C-alpha cells in the first residue's frame, strides 16, 4: 500500500514537471499547423485593416467619423471558430485610427452588442425607473444608428494534394456596406493556404 502511494505521488510530481512554455506571440517562429491559429488571424486582420485604411472608404468628406457596426461574419469552416478573433482586431484598429466610432447598440452578434443599452431603457420605461434620477436616464431618440456595417465569412476548402498530403485553403472575406444606400464601399479577400500530411487534422 505504501509503495502504491509512493508511486502515485511520484507520478503526480512527474506530471507536474512536464515542460510548458509560453508562446512568444510577438516573434513566434513555431511550426505551422493545418488548422487556423492565432498567426493566421493576425495576418488576415492586418491585411484587412491596411486595405481598409488604404482604400479611403472610411474617409468621410465632412471630416466626421462614420458609425460602424459589425454584422454577421459566418464561420463556414470545419473548425469551431469565434469570428470575433478576426473582427475584434479590426474593430480595435479602426477605432484607434480615428476614422470610425463603433456602436454597441446594434450588431450581428451578442458580443457586438452591449445588452445594457437596451436594459437601461427598459428600466427607464418601467416602475423601477422612478428609483433613478430622470436626468441621468437616456432620453428617447438618443441612440445613433450605424452608417456602415462590416460583414463576411471565413470559408474552408479541403483538397487532396497527392496520396500523402492534403491542401487546405482558408478564405477570409469581408465587406463594408453603407446601411443607408446599401452600396458596398469596400471588400477584400485574404487567402491562407496550407499543405501538409493527411495525418494532420484541419478541424
Amino acid at each position: 500500500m505504501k509503495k502504491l502511494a509512493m508511486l502515485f505521488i511520484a507520478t503526480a510530481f512527474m506530471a507536474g514537471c512536464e515542460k510548458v512554455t509560453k508562446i512568444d506571440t510577438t516573434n513566434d517562429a513555431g511550426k505551422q499547423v493545418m488548422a487556423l491559429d492565432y498567426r493566421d488571424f493576425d495576418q488576415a486582420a492586418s491585411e484587412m485593416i491596411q486595405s481598409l485604411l488604404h482604400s479611403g472608404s472610411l474617409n468621410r468628406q465632412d471630416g466626421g467619423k462614420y458609425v460602424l457596426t459589425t454584422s454577421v461574419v459566418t464561420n463556414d469552416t470545419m473548425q469551431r471558430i469565434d469570428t470575433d478573433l478576426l473582427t475584434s482586431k479590426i474593430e480595435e484598429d479602426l477605432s484607434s485610427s480615428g476614422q470610425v466610432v463603433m456602436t454597441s447598440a446594434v450588431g450581428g452578434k451578442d458580443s457586438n452588442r452591449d445588452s445594457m443599452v437596451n436594459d437601461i431603457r427598459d428600466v427607464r420605461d418601467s416602475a423601477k425607473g422612478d428609483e433613478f434620477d430622470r436626468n441621468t436616464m437616456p432620453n428617447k431618440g438618443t441612440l445613433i444608428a450605424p452608417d456602415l456595417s462590416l460583414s463576411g465569412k471565413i470559408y474552408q476548402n479541403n483538397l487532396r494534394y497527392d496520396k500523402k498530403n492534403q491542401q487546405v485553403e482558408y478564405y477570409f472575406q469581408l465587406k463594408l456596406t453603407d446601411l443607408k444606400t446599401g452600396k458596398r464601399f469596400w471588400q477584400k479577400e485574404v487567402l491562407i493556404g496550407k499543405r501538409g500530411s493527411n495525418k494532420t487534422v484541419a478541424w
Partner: protein
Amino acid sequence: MKKFLLMMFFTVSVFVFCGCTPSDKRVNAAVGVKSDNVANNILTRPFYGAYSLLAGEGIDIKDVKTWRNDAGFMELQVSGRNRAVYTKQFEYRVEWLNDKGVRIEAQQTVWLRVSAKAMSDFSFTATAPSKDAVDFKINTRKAKG
C-alpha cells in the same frame, strides 16, 4: 584541350551577352521563358547556384517610398531584388512611429510574409494604422514553414 576551353569560353560568353540584352526592367521574363544565361543554363546553373549559395546571395533593398494617402495615413512601398537563384520567402514587420519616435501600438503590427522569386524584383506596401505616424522601422526574418 585548347579547343574545348575555347568552345567553353565561347559558350559562356554567348550566355553572358544574351543575359545582358537590355530590356524594359518593368517586365521580368522568368527562367524558361527568356533566353538562357549563365545563371539559368542547364550546364552552368549548378555552378552558378553553388556560387550563389556560397556567396550567400539574398535580398537587396533598392528603394523605399513613402507618401500620405487621401485620408492622411502614411503609406510606404519597399522595393528590392532577390539575387539568389531560388525563391526566397521572408517575413517583415512594420512598426510605425509618431513624431516623438514612440511606437504606435496596433493589431496590424504583425509579421507578414513576402515571396520573392529567384533573381527577380519584389515589392510590398504598408499603410500606417494612425494619422500620427510620421516614420517607421521595418524588421525582417526568414520565413519558416
